[in-house]
């Protein structure tokens, strides 16, 4: 029975490894970091994902505590970095800012998320 169980597990793992597939894009990390405090305004927000993104359906915004956009509306996937999403920011006064993103990975799986970062308290 032990051999049967080991064979099942090994077979499943090999099958998974052999398949060249895509999947849901998880946020891997961000700059400014999720939930971080930075001493001064940054010119851009960059998000790194675990999968390549579909440009037409991937976007992010940055808003202040009053809900007003503080980004320049130019969310884009940088050339040669298909798993990265960037947007430029206006100069940010001290405060808390909300990053909201939604992306579609290249195999059509959508994911979304939000996080905050603080300026002026790091």
């Amino acid at each position, binding site marked *: 029975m032990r051999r049967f*169980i080991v064979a099942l597990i090994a077979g499943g793992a090999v099958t998974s490894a052999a*398949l060249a597939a895509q999947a849901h894009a998880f946020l891997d*990390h961000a700059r400014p970091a*999720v*939930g971080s405090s930075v001493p001064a305004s940054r010119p851009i927000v960059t998000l790194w994902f675990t999968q390549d993104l*579909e440009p*037409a359906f991937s*976007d992010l915004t940055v808003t202040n505590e009053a809900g007003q956009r503080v980004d320049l509306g130019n969310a884009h996937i940088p050339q040669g970095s298909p798993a990265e999403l960037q947007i430029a920011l206006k100069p940010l006064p001290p405060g808390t800012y909300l990053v909201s993103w939604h992306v579609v990975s290249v195999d*059509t799986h959508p994911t979304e998320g939000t996080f905050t970062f603080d300026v002026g308290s790091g």
Partner: protein
Amino acid sequence: MKPFGAGAVFAAAAILLSANSAALAHGWAGQRFFPATILTDDPFVADEISLPQVTVTPPGPDGAQSTAVEIDLSKRITPNTGFVIGDQWQRLQPSGLPAVTGLGALHTEAQYQLFINGPHEALGLLGLNVIWAHTGRVQALGAPDFTTLAPTFNFGKGLGDLPRSLPYLRPIAITGNLGFGFPTKTESAGVLNPTTFNYGFAFEYSFSYLECCVKDIGLRAPFNQLIPLVEVAFTTPINRIPANQTIGTIQPGIIWAGQYFQIGAEAIIPANRFTGQGYGGVFQLHFYLDDLFPRSIGRPISEWW
């Protein structure tokens, strides 16, 4: 974003339409990912397969202990409906007697996704579980000679909508099942078969949610994909035998959720003397078919043609 032409619009529309159904694939509500739990039923329709789940039960009240190898397939029929089918191969070691082996009872579930609320990270599912009579070794292994019909409500709720002043509580999620089991025979070989109230919960703490949505504390793969959890499940008879003969288990463990599969392991602790004694354990390798085969069998059957 860059402007795009008519061809791109058509392609984009196709992607958007397919993305809408993919959004309901395994365990997502807003930014919350719910893993497939081991003991309790999931509150979402999915394209997934447990291959295998290996369970070593704690010794029962009579000292008998079993090892089971189980396979469960979950499949979406449409974006909001699905089914589950599963069976297990079992080795039962009665106390002081030779071991017996064979198939357990076939079980199925018909599912309807009642709601998904993204902003509040909430899921609800209605299901009808059926354990089929005479599909396992009845006399030797104790597989049922009667069918049990078990309507159930499965739910999930992430705490991500808590105030941001409570950051370290926001990665918590709770899933659960509430249902009844109706046997189609009241007695089998002189033993009464009660109608039962079945309830179970999973309490999860998602490190991936902490990292993506609350605070980056520097965890990287594989540690940022861990979900420690405690599952509990109980069955209480509501007729024919005393209600105090509730049985149940408490199962602390951990799940690692990757892009294409997850691995889970839990200890099995009997909740009382009616359930058993000592300890057991369960291991599960679980594949996400919608991520492995996003353009074929990982899609709802209604979208295959």
